[in-house]
Structure formats: C-alpha cells, structure tokens
C-alpha cells in the first residue's frame, strides 16, 4: 500500500473507530518512508474540531534470508512502539501523544495514530537559524534531563524490549559487517578496539537507541518530542549520551553534544535528573564505537542494492559516507576531540 488513495478510506474508518466521528480525513501527506516504517501527516475532523495527527505504519521489511544478521536487530514497531512512547511520556520524556493503536480490523497493518507535534527536525536549521538560539543555549541541559528520566523507567513495564547491552551490540555489528563480506581494515580495527574496550558490568536501562538531532522535534526554546523509538532496547544507558556526541550527529557544529554544547553540561544535567555519574572513558567508548557502528551502517546502505536489487540515489550517497566516521574514529584514537 503505497498510495494515499488506498490509504485514506481505511484511515478514515480507523479514526472513526478509535478516535471519534465523523473522522473525515484531510491533507494526507507522506512524511517519511523508511525501511521499517512510514509516517503520514493528516487532519481528522472529530466533532467540530479539526485535529492535526500523524499515522505511523510498520512497513513490510524486505525479505531477508533466515539467519541473516541484518534481521536480528531489535525493532520496536506497531503496538510496541506506541506502548514505548506512552511509557516514555508518563516518565516525563517529551514523546508524541499516542491517540490510537491500530487493530487488525483496520486493515492497515501494525501502527498507531499520534498527535502531530509541530517543530523542526532538520539539524542544519536547528544549529544555525536565529529562532533556535534559546534552544541551543539549553540543549545539553534538556537532553540530560530527558535521558535521566528515560533511564529511570521500570523495564518490567515494557516486556517486549530486548537486551542489547554493549557486548551484544558489538557482537551484533561484527556479524552484520561479516555478512557484508567487504573487508575494510579501518572497520576491522574499530571492531577489535571495541571488543578490547567493552564497558564491563554496565547498568541496564531502557535506552532510546537513536537519540540524536534528526530524531528530536524542536521548538525555538524546547525539545518538544523525541521520535523514532524503533531501536529502543534494554541497554547501557551511557549509549544514548555517547551517540548524541558522535561527530556525525554534530552536523558540523563545533561542540560535542549535538554540535551545540559541552559534555560536562550534559553529564551534570543527567545526574540532576536522577541519572548515574558517568565516567568520561565510558562516554568516549560509546562515541568511538558509535562512529564504527555508523561506518558499518553506511557500508550496509552502500551494498544494499546488491542484496535487494533496488537502489536509490540516497542509498548510494550514504554508502559514500563510510569514511567520515572512520576518519573520526581514527582521530579519537589519536586523542583528538
């Protein structure tokens, strides 16, 4: 189902069923279409009100051979994604309010309907445009607070989350890299470094898994919603803070935390929100391994057409980005920021 015309009548029926009448749909527009999900914005008339909403559908994944390591990554989609966002919101993390979880009789597959959260996700604008200056000032404090609260969530309330700690994660990306059979000495070095420097006995918490600019809907002075929870898992909480500081996710900004702030400000705000004290070496592990991981993801994108037989301009471009994080990783090894 790729066309808005097929989608609209089913969506309208789902809105009527779950949210209210008359449920008339307008302005249906595709926002993103990723490998694991697609999102659409639309308005629905409920009573006399016109609500701005978002539909998130778990899309069908390309068929992968059984045992393919690419199929192993824990993915939180559909009703689980909705439960994750609801639990996060209850813990004080800004997440899109979930209005309805789709049911089989909706005929739309897995997914949910959320309130539309207005704001900016494009990093380049958040980092440079004047209206985001107040946000840039408090960005590290806000991120520290959000992650501190998220990491205190009780995991037992989210039974579908899979354990994905440091050792499991490094092992996973080793298998993904091996399956691609495209030997890269710099990646090999990165993986061996990660195995040698694994944080042992780390705490386990509910982690977002992809906490960075691009997945934060921002207003002029506040982060309004954390989106894209599909990589949520039970992991090392420091992972979320390190990933936010990976050079790729600084988008050219001069400072480590999202390109906007110093690590100290993030760590202090994290503690204040109930997070643990974090050792800088531990944080650096996740920054360095984050670069290696992104390099493997680029390699995966660059080889995707060989596996799926389909190629896009964007895929090819991401494939050509592999050396960016590898260069950064080597800089980190050499002691540079």
């Amino acid at each position, binding site marked *: 189902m790729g066309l808005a015309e097929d989608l609209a009548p089913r969506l309208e029926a789902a809105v009527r069923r779950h949210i209210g009448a008359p449920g008339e749909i307008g302005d249906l527009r595709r926002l993103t279409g990723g490998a694991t999900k697609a999102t659409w914005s639309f308005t629905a008339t409920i009573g006399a009100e016109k609500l701005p909403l978002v539909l998130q559908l778990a899309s069908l994944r390309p068929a992968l051979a059984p045992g393919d390591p690419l199929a192993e990554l824990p993915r939180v989609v559909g009703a689980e994604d909705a439960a994750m966002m609801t639990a996060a919101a209850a813990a004080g993390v800004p997440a899109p309010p979930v209005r309805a979880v789709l049911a089989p009789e909706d005929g739309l597959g897995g997914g949910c309907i959320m309130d539309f959260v207005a704001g900016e996700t494009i990093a380049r604008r958040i980092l440079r445009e004047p209206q985001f200056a107040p946000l840039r000032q408090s960005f590290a404090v806000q991120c520290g607070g959000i992650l501190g609260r998220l990491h205190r969530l009780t995991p037992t309330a989210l039974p579908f989350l899979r354990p994905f700690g440091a050792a499991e994660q490094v092992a996973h990306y080793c298998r993904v890299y091996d399956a691609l059979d495209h*030997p*890269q*000495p710099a990646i090999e070095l990165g993986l061996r470094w990660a195995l040698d420097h694994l944080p042992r006995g780390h705490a386990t918490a509910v982690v977002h898994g992809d906490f960075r600019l691009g997945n934060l809907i921002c207003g002029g002075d506040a982060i309004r919603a954390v989106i894209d929870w599909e990589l949520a898992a039970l992991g090392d909480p420091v992972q979320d803070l390190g990933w936010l500081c990976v050079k790729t996710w600084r988008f050219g900004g001069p400072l480590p935390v999202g390109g906007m702030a110093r690590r100290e400000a993030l760590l202090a705000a994290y503690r204040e929100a109930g997070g643990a004290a974090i050792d800088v070496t531990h944080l650096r592990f996740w920054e360095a391994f984050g670069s290696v991981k992104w390099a493997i993801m680029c390699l995966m994108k660059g080889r995707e057409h060989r596996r799926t037989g389909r190629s896009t301009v964007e895929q*090819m*471009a991401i494939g*050509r980005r592999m*050396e960016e994080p590898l260069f950064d990783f080597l800089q980190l090894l050499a002691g540079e920021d």
Partner: protein
Amino acid sequence: MPMTLSLAPDMLATIRDYLQKEILPTLDDDKWFNVKVAVNLLATIERELRQGPAADEEERARLAALLGTSGTLGELNRALALAIREGRIALDDPGLLDHLRQTTADALRINNPQWLGR
C-alpha cells in the same frame, strides 16, 4: 578512444553544472532533495576519475609495504583486515594507523573533501 572526445570528468562537470543551475531551482521537496544528492554524487565521480587512480596506487603500495607481500588492492585489503582480526598486527602499530589515516583521508578527498576541514 579518439582523442577528440570530451574527457569524462569534463563531461560530468558540465552535466552537473547544468543540473545544478537549470534544473534544481525548478524542483521542490523530494525531487529537489534527490537531484541535489545526485549533483553531489556527480561531483564525487568527477573527483574519483581525476584522483582515484593515483590514490589507489599509493594505497596498494602502502599495503604491500605494511604486509610485506604483493597483490591487488582488494587482496591486500582483505589480507590486512584478516591480520587485524587475528591479532597479527597491533592496534597501535604506527605504520597501520598512518596507513589507515592516509587511506580514509584520500577517500574523503574524493567523497567529501569538506569533512577533512572540520
């Protein structure tokens, strides 16, 4: 090939320039984004055609010296990857790190030269 033909990198530069100046401003949203990315990729191909052969040859020579053996670029990279995995070369070997820094920097000079200036 006849010497009179336009050189591939020059043709790419002309095509890129046309897309960038004449086509891109007429597009929106999705199409704008994809043509913009395509224009960047054409610039990458152009740089690869001009710089790739020398960079590959230098990489191959460095690999051969590091491994003390000869082979194609693909064979030598596979051999080095395996040596790293099996611990036959130390992670902090200065020759290894120099080689990898040089190789990733040369690739960035083709794929995204701006990254080096950051």
